[in-house]
């Protein structure tokens, strides 16, 4: 029989990991297409969380409390605001400097990230804000008296929404016309352009998709943690970036896998060692992967043809 304590850590890890995976997809898609890391991505996620908090408070003020409506409207609001932010980041911080030395877009993205963080500081205040959980309770397994495994409704919601998002993204990339163009652009940007694909639009699309998924994660993790602050995106961004590298940056299934592995290893560390060690473990994993398999678990090694 599975140890119920272990099972609990696994559930917690998969919950947090699937949210990491959602954010990691944004990093990996942008990297896959333009070969650059979007360092403002964590902030987009944070803005998604703030937007959904604002929407939820607004709906509460109007007296609307029916859960499905609140959840859907909050998701929509967060996705719309974050997607426009993602689009704007590409337009302002990436497109004007694309094709220059790689450090230049990196610096402009960091600038963008600092700007967004401080903007939210000013607009929303720098203190923690409580985030309504919206749903209480859950299922518990195991006999009373010993350790009981619990699976809360919110964890189930996180799993389900993440699964839906990932399935939708996979179908989009594999089947749709725009998805096909995304794959083409990520393989050979110049050739795609010569075949008449508007590559600027495709690049903007990947920023928008990544931002939309980050916004979903923002709402889900906001509910899960129960409080948000303007620095909320920074550490989550780093974790998701680690997840993307772990799975193989540029690979979407890799980002999903990397997120789950990272989440599980973190919760196992908190559960069996100590919560303080979880960041040590996740960034230690990053170092190990970079040392022994720099292309990540599912990344393909770059073979230069001569």
């Amino acid at each position, binding site marked *: 029989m599975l140890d119920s304590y272990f099972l609990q850590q696994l559930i917690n890890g998969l919950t947090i990991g699937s949210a990491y995976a959602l954010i990691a997809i944004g990093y990996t898609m942008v990297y896959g297409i333009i070969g650059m890391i979007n360092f403002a991505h964590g902030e987009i996620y944070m803005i998604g969380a703030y937007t959904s908090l604002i929407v939820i408070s607004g709906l509460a003020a109007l007296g609307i409390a029916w859960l499905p409506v609140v959840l859907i409207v909050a998701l929509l609001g967060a996705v719309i605001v974050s997607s426009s932010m993602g689009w704007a980041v590409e337009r302002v911080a990436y497109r004007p400097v694309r094709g220059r030395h790689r450090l230049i877009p990196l610096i402009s993205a960091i600038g963008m990230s600092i700007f967004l963080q401080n903007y939210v500081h000013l607009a929303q205040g720098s203190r923690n804000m409580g985030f309504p959980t919206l749903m209480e309770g859950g299922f518990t397994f195991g006999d009373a008296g010993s350790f009981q495994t619990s699976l809360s409704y919110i964890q189930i919601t996180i799993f389900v929404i993440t699964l839906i998002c990932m399935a939708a993204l996979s179908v989009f990339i594999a089947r*749709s*016309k*725009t998805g*096909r*163009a995304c*794959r*083409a652009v990520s*393989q*050979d940007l*110049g*050739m*795609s*352009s*010569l*075949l*008449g*694909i*508007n*590559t600027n639009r495709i690049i903007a699309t990947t920023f928008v998709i990544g931002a939309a998924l980050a916004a979903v994660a923002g709402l889900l993790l906001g509910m899960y943690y129960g409080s948000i602050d303007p620095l909320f995106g920074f550490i989550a961004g780093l974790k998701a970036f680690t997840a993307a590298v772990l799975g193989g940056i540029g690979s979407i299934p890799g980002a999903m896998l990397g997120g789950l592995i990272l989440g599980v290893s973190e919760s196992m560390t908190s559960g069996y060692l100590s919560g303080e060690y979880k960041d040590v473990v996740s960034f230690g994993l990053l170092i190990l992967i970079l040392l022994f398999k720099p292309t990540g678990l599912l990344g393909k090694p770059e073979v230069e043809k001569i």
Partner: protein
Amino acid sequence: MLEVRDLSMRFGGLLAVDRVSLDVQEHEIVSIIGPNGAGKTTVFNCMSGFYRPSGGKILFEDREIQGTPDYKISRLGLVRTFQHVRLFSRMTVVENLLVAQHRHLNTNLFSGLIKTPNYRLREQKSLDRAAYWLNRVGLLDMANRDAGNLAYGQQRRLEIARCMVTEPKLLMLDEPAAGLNPAETRELNQLIISLKEDYHVSVVLIEHDMSLVMEISDRINVINQGRPLASGTPDEIRHNDDVIKAYLGEA
């Protein structure tokens, strides 16, 4: 249909192309030949919007196109290949042809999501066109393989098919026979002539394989060290003293 007037391209202190002029009429195969480093590919790069030329004009159907972004040039019907194969190697053969028709499918995301009848119709059309061209270049059996797994000669044919599904008016081929064996080169010959005869596409060709050039070209332009050296029919070029000198050195 295409006219290049006094085209110049300067990279720093190097004048790679110096006042080259050429023209292509409808229904014509025009070759550009010259020793290595003569500037042939640079001319191509200017024509396809890869480079913005330092001087001169490029007119396509009486429209100036120099400096126009490459995706807009290809939408006008001017499509090119490269010296080395540039397929999307991790996509299947048929996907390579579908993605090339991206702009023909230019519907918005919304109609793609709910798959309107119009969208389905266009999707079907582009699939039909892809199948037609795969059959034409003998790759129909390979449709679902990854393009990167094809043999080299097949990859070159797929590249031409990928250009053709965009329904170009003018095709620019940069050394299409490079790396092909004699049998494959003969097949390519037939294909290029058929593009002109059956599909009414004009072709501009850069090629080193003289047998190919002489056999299929209507006219030939010779470039040497960035400058135009001669132009004329294959027969005129074959007997041109300047050309013989440039290729064989002074006697």
